[in-house]
């Protein structure tokens, strides 16, 4: 009992022997026997090639998927026991291309979760203004625009603001900057790092870009074919001997837009 409470206060998210296979005839294994704990305030980067299971791992956290075996605990409670709607309202989610609602204005997009949570008009509007300023967009200029009237970078900023709207303790990000041009991407990465340090959120960030992982992570977890093959803070990660780590490190020199 005591151990459980202690766990809860330390680890906001915990994977316990989690496996996930697609529920069809082939039963392809996507995640096998992953155990991982994410303490409060960590920025954990899930790194891996396409198809390594990063996104699946992310979707197991907010119960968009449920594990085939094992348990995923969020705030000490298994995702299968959570009401998925309640769970997700406490978890910010940012994806590539932002996934903004095209029929909503920027303000309506950012204010979505507060509106669903019935905050009331004034409080929501104040929060929307605060968030737009936080992500570097002037509310007077942007609040009434539609997503199609924004650049890719601006859209992604709105996506981040929307995810932060109800002040969730957890933020999940699935290659949020992947579709941006290299200059805008670098700009958003730097700003996001500053933001993450200031806000003290627990962040799980998916990417296939080691450079991005090194910039943002407090810990990098490398996935290969649904298994964790390495986990270390950035400086240590670069020195690991695992062949998949070496493959990623080798890609640094040849990555497009390599300027460091």
């Amino acid at each position, binding site marked *: 009992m005591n151990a459980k409470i202690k766990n809860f206060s330390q680890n906001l998210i915990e994977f316990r022997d989690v496996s996930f296979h697609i529920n069809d005839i082939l039963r392809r294994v996507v995640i096998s026997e992953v155990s991982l704990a994410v303490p409060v305030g960590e920025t954990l980067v899930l790194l891996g090639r396409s198809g390594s299971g990063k996104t699946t791992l992310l979707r197991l956290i907010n119960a968009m998927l449920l594990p085939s075996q094992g348990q995923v605990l969020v705030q000490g409670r298994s995702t299968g026991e959570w009401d998925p709607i309640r769970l*997700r309202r406490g978890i910010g989610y940012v*994806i590539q291309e932002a996934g*903004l*609602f095209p029929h909503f204005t920027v303000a309506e997009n950012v204010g*979505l979760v507060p509106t669903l949570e019935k905050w009331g008009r004034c409080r929501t509007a104040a929060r929307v203004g605060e968030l737009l300023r936080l992500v570097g967009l002037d509310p007077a200029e942007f609040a009434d625009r539609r997503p199609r009237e924004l650049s890719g970078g601006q859209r992604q900023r709105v996506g981040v603001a929307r995810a932060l709207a109800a002040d969730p303790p957890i933020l999940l990000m699935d290659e949020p900057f992947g579709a941006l041009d290299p200059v805008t991407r670098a700009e958003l990465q730097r700003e996001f790092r500053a933001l993450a340090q200031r806000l003290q959120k627990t962040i799980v960030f998916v990417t296939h870009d080691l450079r991005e992982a090194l910039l943002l992570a407090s810990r990098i977890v490398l996935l290969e074919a649904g298994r964790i093959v390495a986990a270390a803070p950035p400086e240590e990660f670069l020195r690991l001997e695992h062949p998949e780590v070496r493959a990623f490190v080798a890609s640094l020199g040849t990555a497009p837009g390599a300027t460091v």
Partner: protein
Amino acid sequence: MNATSSYWSFLTEHREEVWSATADHMTLVVIAMLIAIVIAVPLGMFIVQRPALRAVSISIANIFQTIPSLALFGLLIPIPFIGGIGRRTAIVALVLYALLPILRNTYVGLSGIDSAVLEAAEAMGMTSGQILFRVRFPLALSVILAGIRTATIITIGVATIAAEIGAGGLGTFIFRGVALVSDSLILAGAVPAALLALLADFLLGLLERRLRVV
């Protein structure tokens, strides 16, 4: 020249009759369309996440479309409650014709939404009802309306045949004109029907563009 002037003189002489037939025609179309919308739009929303039901219902609606309209009117006459001679039978047939375009467009509109948008909606903790009514439906509205527009134009045309089973409308002139070999009579039915179709197309097209997102 001669035909045109005799057509005009016919129209002016029978203005009242033509107007009342046009009004009857519009009544038939509007009633049939309202019923078809009330059936097909909710059905389309219902089948979006149910592939088996989707195949069955779209196939059935497809079959109605393939039955020649005159045959469909004839086939309905002997059926109890919905059949018989007159307006009710005609409306049933028109509804059956209008179902497919509305049903198909409702389904296509609701299912053709950017998967990133739907993923975000789910991940932000919207319930499936909220996703349907606040995200899918508003984004699909212009596509659904395009289906309603197609169905309306079809219905205006097919409704002329309803006169054959005693439902009235502009078809009355056409059938009488065919029987009497009178171009003026045929045109007295055909021209207003064509104008109605063009007008409906134009007005619904305006609405459709206004509701389009992106």
